[in-house]
């Protein structure tokens, strides 16, 4: 396998934009291509990450539509649907294409336009990924996070405030990210006084409904060296799945697929959790960020909440997590998220993050499909 580098990235502003999905994807895609300085280059593949263009916007064939907007014919193009892990899955596909030697230049673009629907309708569309037996009971993805939160707090004595601190941190980080949906600092009291969504979790524990797109250009390390001074290589990547029904899983206070995907990525990169200096994690709900601290090996089982409470993962902490603002405050346009995570780590490693810049030469992304149904972990390093 040959090394695969990120040659450029592009993001749209996240939020309620009024723009259509194809327009968002084209904006992010064009920015990534220009960022790489490859305006006239011929692309081999285009992988488009998206969950529900049909349900949200009545559109299918989004990969071909994007190819048309960017005049990238006759590149191979396909949509990759893996629910909230679509972005990570598309990065995985792009990585395989280049690593295998088959492709030299790949565009990975992810996007979702969700504001066409009410929050309830969006919850219904997203809940279509759950096991039918669970779906008819009325579950929502946020309700599953609440089940994890209650079990975790009970088992490990985690205080409610520790979860709130994740939201406070990520909102603060988002104020320094021009692409983020929210630019509003919040306090622990704001979180604890916000409306209950799924007891014990409240409005500010959850990511919002968001429109947006993100894109990266992947190529060989050799070609990336000609394009930039500090090439960033995907040195490790792992993808693992777990049982479709959450009832078949042993417990809800951990995600075995995060552990397995991370193990593959660490092994490929020849790294350990202690080597990671910045991370973008899948904080669909505050509790999930804490569970990932543990399943990724950053902190011991049952102690992730302490890291949140003590500010260890803040911008000025020992391991800054979700410098972008995360899903929580940057926003979670479903198909875009896994790609946007790679954009943030790429920009951090290149020193392009302005006020939210941290010192790092190695970063990690963790993108979760469904409720831990599938997980993609990537490790990126400056070469």
């Amino acid at each position, binding site marked *: 396998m040959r090394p695969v580098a990120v040659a450029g990235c592009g993001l749209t502003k996240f939020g309620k934009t009024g723009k259509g999905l194809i327009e968002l994807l084209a904006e992010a895609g064009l920015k990534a291509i220009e960022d790489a300085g490859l305006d006239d280059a011929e692309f081999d593949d285009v992988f488009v990450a998206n969950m529900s263009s049909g349900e949200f916007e009545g559109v299918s064939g989004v990969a071909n539509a994007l190819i048309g907007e960017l005049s990238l014919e006759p590149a191979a193009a396909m949509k990759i649907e893996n629910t909230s892990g679509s972005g990570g899955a598309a990065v995985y596909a792009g990585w395989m294409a280049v690593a295998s030697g088959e492709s030299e230049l790949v565009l990975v673009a992810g996007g979702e336009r969700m504001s066409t629907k009410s*929050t*309830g*309708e969006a*919850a*219904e569309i997203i*809940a279509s990924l759950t*096991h039918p*037996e*669970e779906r*008819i*009971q*009325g*579950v*929502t993805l*946020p*309700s599953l996070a*609440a*089940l*994890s939160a*209650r*079990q975790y707090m*009970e088992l490990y004595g985690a205080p409610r405030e520790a979860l709130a601190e994740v939201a406070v941190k990520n909102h603060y980080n988002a104020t320094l990210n021009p692409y983020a949906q929210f630019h509003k600092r919040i306090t622990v009291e704001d979180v604890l006084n916000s*409306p*209950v*969504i*799924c*007891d*014990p*979790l409240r409005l500010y524990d959850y990511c919002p409904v968001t429109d947006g797109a993100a894109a990266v250009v992947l190529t060989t390390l050799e070609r990336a060296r000609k394009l930039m001074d500090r090439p960033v290589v995907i040195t490790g990547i792992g993808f693992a799945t777990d*049982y*479709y*029904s*959450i*009832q*078949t*899983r*042993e417990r*809800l206070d951990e995600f075995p697929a995060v552990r397995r995907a991370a193990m593959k990525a660490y092994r490929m990169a020849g790294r350990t959790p202690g080597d990671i200096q910045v991370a973008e994690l899948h904080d669909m709900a505050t509790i999930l960020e804490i569970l990932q601290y543990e399943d990724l090996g950053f902190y011991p089982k049952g102690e992730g909440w302490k890291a949140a409470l003590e500010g260890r993962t803040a911008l000025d902490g020992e391991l800054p997590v979700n410098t972008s603002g995360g899903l929580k405050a940057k926003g979670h346009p479903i198909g875009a998220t896994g790609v946007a995570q790679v954009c943030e780590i790429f920009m951090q490693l290149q020193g392009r993050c302005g006020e939210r810049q941290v010192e790092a030469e190695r970063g990690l992304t963790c993108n979760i499909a469904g409720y831990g149904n599938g997980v993609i972990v990537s490790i990126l390093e400056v070469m």
Partner: protein
Amino acid sequence: MLRAYRCRRCGHVFRPRRLQCPKCRGMELEEMALRRGKLVSYTLIYATRPGYEPPLTIGLAEFENGVKLLAQLDIEDPELGMEVVPVNSGTSNEGEPFIRLKRA
């Protein structure tokens, strides 16, 4: 009746039903009834999906062999660790027979 499935090849017990045993991919499965479990988590959903009245209480119960059921609770004041039993209770929004959890 709440059913679990025992794999005749490796003895693993699981639910809900799937084509093959999640441990050994054995395909000969026998049904067994689940009677009494313990509540391991629950939530009151205020932001419900269309067609579900808030607050909707759902819980996760663990039965013998670690088998679990995620279901609506017909329990006023749920507590972690309380004993629960599955009961046939009305129909789902799609009109199918529906299992809820009650206090044991």
